[in-house]
């Protein structure tokens, strides 16, 4: 254990009502030199107002190209415990359900080889084990796989897919989000572990347009459950709810397509006009339920701003039936990857490639027909391209 360091600034963050990450580091620091030196170097960052982590190097486990983020500090002499401070990404179960037994097993492994600190979860959804050394990676890998766990993604590959809780606990879910997430993870193991794409690719699955996994904002492929038929209405429950809420103001007036009406006792929906935004169902879950002809809208392109500006996913397939084993979805994803592989530049996300090359190239490659649902509105500019055969 390195020399004792004073951490007055961090100590201040032990106070207050919100759970304190400093307390957590201190707990781990009791057992782990790595966690202890993390405190020291973090306090230094608080003083200097800059990070003390250097660019990571490539570290990992045999046969995998990802799953570990290499990290080294720039003050290794002062803080030898964090000279190496790699993170290990563990693929969580879909839906983030655990048993205490499984969790404790994982904790044992981590206490043995690492800082004892984790993020539950990382923003992508991995269990992020923070702080270990290069020589511990293979042992960690051997122990987790022995318990049935595997690494998640990092680098230019498929990243660990994730989903909302879906049918496990949500009455709104139109698709089996956890099953889709799990199945895709299993089908694409090679793409997940061995980076061979132009850049990263993320898949997220939400059971309805509430998008509780923020798929549209942060997944290249966003799968959003929806339905084709009519919202199911329980008029007795409507009457009941009318006693405790203002249905006209809170529901009917807020419907974006103005397709509802309420006469004080019966609620009517013109389902042809409904865009399945979920607002009315959210407000009256006892009275309203999504329809029965369920499936998903498949959307493409979501990502953070680097470098041409953030994108949210847009509609690629308005409606796809999704039933295990989801071969239709797999086929579509493979076709998209093939097209991206053929045309994408290094570090170009698939959404940026569509943005650069135009939707047509991608649609032709995947065999998807152009449909008005793909766009908010048709083009305003007159710079229309015609393929050679089209002009006659």
């Amino acid at each position, binding site marked *: 254990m390195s020399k004792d360091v004073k951490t007055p*600034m961090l100590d*201040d963050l032990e106070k207050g009502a*919100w759970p304190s990450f400093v307390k957590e580091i201190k707990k781990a620091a009791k057992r782990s030199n790595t966690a202890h030196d993390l405190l020291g170097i*973090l306090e230094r960052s608080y003083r200097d107002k800059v990070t003390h*982590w250097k660019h990571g190097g490539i570290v990992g486990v045999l046969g995998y190209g990802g799953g570990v983020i290499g990290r080294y500090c720039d003050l290794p002499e002062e803080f030898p415990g964090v000279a190496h401070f790699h993170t290990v990404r563990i693929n*969580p179960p879909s839906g983030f359900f655990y048993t205490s037994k499984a969790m404790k097993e994982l904790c044992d492994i981590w206490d043995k080889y690492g800082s004892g600190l984790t993020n539950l979860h990382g*923003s992508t959804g991995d269990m992020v084990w923070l702080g270990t050394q290069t020589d511990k990676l293979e042992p960690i890998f051997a122990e987790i796989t022995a318990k049935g*766990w595997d690494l998640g993604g990092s680098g230019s590959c498929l990243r660990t897919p994730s989903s909302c809780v879906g049918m496990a606990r949500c009455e709104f879910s139109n698709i089996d989000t956890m099953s889709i997430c799990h199945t895709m*993870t299993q089908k694409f193991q090679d793409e997940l572990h061995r980076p061979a794409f132009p850049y990263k690719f993320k898949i997220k699955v939400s059971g309805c347009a509430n*998008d509780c996994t923020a798929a549209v904002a942060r997944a290249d492929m966003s799968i959003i459950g929806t339905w084709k038929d009519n919202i199911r209405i329980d008029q007795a429950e409507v009457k009941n709810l009318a006693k405790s809420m203002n249905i006209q103001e809170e529901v009917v007036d807020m419907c974006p397509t103005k397709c509802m009406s309420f006469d004080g006792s019966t609620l009517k929906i013109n389902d042809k006009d409904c865009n399945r935004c979920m607002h009315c169902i959210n407000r009256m879950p006892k009275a309203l339920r999504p329809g029965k002809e369920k499936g998903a809208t498949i959307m493409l392109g979501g990502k953070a701003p680097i470098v041409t500006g953030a994108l949210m996913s847009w509609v690629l397939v308005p409606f796809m039936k999704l039933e295990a084993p989801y071969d239709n979805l797999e086929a579509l994803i493979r076709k998209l990857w093939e097209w991206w592989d053929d045309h994408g530049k290094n570090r170009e996300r698939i959404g940026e490639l569509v943005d650069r090359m135009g939707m047509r190239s991608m649609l032709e490659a995947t065999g998807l027909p152009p449909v008005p649902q793909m766009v908010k509105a048709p083009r305003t500019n007159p710079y229309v391209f015609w393929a050679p055969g089209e002009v006659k």
Partner: protein
Amino acid sequence: MADKPKRITDLGSPDYNKFLPPVIAKNYGKWKYHEYINKGVMKHVSETGDELYTVRIATPRLVSTDYIREMCDFSEKYSGGYLRWTTRHNVEFFPAKEQVDGLVADLKKAGHLVGGIGYGISNVVHTQGWIHCHTPATDASGVVKAVMDELHEYFTTKTLPARVRIALACCLNMCGAVHCSDIAILGIHRLPPKVNEATLANQCEIPTTIASCPTGAISPNPATKSVKIKSERCMYCGNCYTMCPSLPIADGTGDGISIYVGGKVSNARGPARMSKLVIPFLPNNPPRWPETVKAVKHLVEVYAQNAKKHERMGEWIERIGWERFFKLTGIPFTYQHIDDFTFARDTFRMTPTFKWE
């Protein structure tokens, strides 16, 4: 070699089915409706008549194995050994109806915050900051802790007109859904990278480095086998540093925080939308970032006072207009608010219809 035990690979994610509480396994896909009991407890009712109670608590996201073991203990005592994490880093337990009160009381006694359900502020989605990343312009966990110490009652008891999703990213890479949050706290640099001419030739591929710059600010410097940066073109995105360690961009004075608001992800009532810049810069002031805490609190309070029920922050602002928003919040409007990047034209107000303030 032949003696080595076969290495297990490509297991993927463990089958979630083995982690589902029995009531969930039984009622999977059969849930009919839910009810909020209070900000920390909700009930889901199945077509079979079964009921599922969920109790939720906040976590600091960065946790020790001790913490996880503590959660496991709670789950064993009250939740059949099952527990769950939400997409926003909260922990959920599934007690039987008669166990709910005991669990809640025990959790509170142990100092945990029960809440996060319904209209209020749930956990903050955030990133690594000075804990683990090489590109941050601010810390993550520290800022979140400081902000939520001030706002925790919106997690536990106080309600708001609708959900307010706060997220933080420590640099422009925006790990997390920061760009579509009601309130986004974003670490920014404001000075161009410094060129480390001594190491660059060794550490970096010059053409890739040049290509990494979205604004074309980087050009070769053959004299030093390095590169030059046109500072007046640099927008401090840090992408060149991601590609080339010899272009460090972090700077104690230049770095700090900017605040974006009005984004959302859900499509309820209106489509998902991106957050917009409202406070271009606040200084890094560890350990409690008072300027940032004050600003976020102020934004939440002005929203709470003015928005209609069910109206997310962005929906409220769009209804009243940005001109009114700046007036109500007292935030000055500056050059920085006006987009001047590639797609700027779409943000220009191409109509003479607006409010005076």
